[in-house]
């Protein structure tokens, strides 16, 4: 078989190319098998992540029922606009990441880089809004252990004049804020890890990787990114929305 026939066959079916793909590890029979194994492994990891965040959600559920008035008053201090903005930013970033996987599948390097950069920018945008909110909470003395004062819950606020809690209940808002910082903090840590991994992948794509049919690393990163999006999809209503009228 001369090189011409080989090239034609490659363009036609992709089979000759795939059987000898440089990224095919020797212990796999074919590229699809290798990819299936990678997807399986990634989902097993994400299952452990479900359990990790699940524990946090579970304790939020229990403590919210135990110290209900304190959790409601704590939730009233968050900015709904910031939560909505961040949800929007993350959903759009999930879309751009899905498009990046599509670009890797169709092997278009410029599109892949463009969608990855868009995802990177949106991820950083999310972290900026989150940092702004955390700064606000620091200024308002709502950070348990480091900078906390129950004063703002004793006399009612402008938006919620009825939030006049007795001192012992006002102290319990620390539980709400502890869980708030733990949950949004662990989520932000996942975002920071995501943004770092995305930067590394982007440099590798710039060097010519992942547009030769080796989609698994991009696809698995996409799964991670969408998972972090899902965590926020639940954090947003639980922390910001459900206590608004209570």
């Amino acid at each position, binding site marked *: 078989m001369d090189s011409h026939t080989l090239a034609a066959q490659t363009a036609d079916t992709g089979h000759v190319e795939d059987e000898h793909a440089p990224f095919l590890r020797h212990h796999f029979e074919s590229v699809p098998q290798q990819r299936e194994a990678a997807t399986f492994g990634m989902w097993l990891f994400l*299952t452990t992540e479900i*359990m990790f965040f699940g524990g946090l959600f579970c304790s939020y559920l229990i403590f919210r029922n135990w110290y209900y008035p304190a959790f409601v008053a704590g939730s009233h201090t968050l900015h709904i606009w910031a939560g909505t903005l961040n949800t929007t930013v993350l959903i759009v970033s*999930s879309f751009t990441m899905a498009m990046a996987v599509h670009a890797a599948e169709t092997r278009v390097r410029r599109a892949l880089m463009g969608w990855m950069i868009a995802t990177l920018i949106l991820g950083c945008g999310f972290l900026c809004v989150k940092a702004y909110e955390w700064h606000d909470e620091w200024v308002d003395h709502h950070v348990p252990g480091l900078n906390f004062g129950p004063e703002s819950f004793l006399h009612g606020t402008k938006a919620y004049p009825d939030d006049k809690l007795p001192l012992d209940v006002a102290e319990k808002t620390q539980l709400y804020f502890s869980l708030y910082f733990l949950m949004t903090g662990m989520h932000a840590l996942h975002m920071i890890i995501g943004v770092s991994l995305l930067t590394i992948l982007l440099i590798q794509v710039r060097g010519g990787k992942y547009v030769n049919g080796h989609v698994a690393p991009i696809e698995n990163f996409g799964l991670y990114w*969408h998972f972090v999006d899902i965590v926020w999809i639940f954090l947003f209503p639980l922390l910001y929305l459900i206590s608004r009228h209570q």
Partner: protein
Amino acid sequence: MAELKHHDEPTHHEHHIVSPGVYLAICATLLVLTATTTAVSYVDLGEYNTVVALAIACTKMTLVVLFFMHIKYSSKLTKLTVAAGFFTFIVLIMMTMTDYISRAWGRW
């Protein structure tokens, strides 16, 4: 021959590339649901505020898992892995809640 063997394998799964149109439609739906859940939170529904917010969040999660994470087009092995993960999670939550609800029975 090799081709035939490949397709006969029980684990064989035809790979599917999701089209950008589908991604765009899902993204638009997710944004509409986000606007809805924020808007509904301004309406006083009593305890149903929580129910509606969580129902919308579950719908959004399902859309992300099925389409952005390709589970609708994945192999049975992957589908089963995801289902097993959620099932185990729900079992753990239920067990914990059962304990907390019944521990102080009659004292609250």
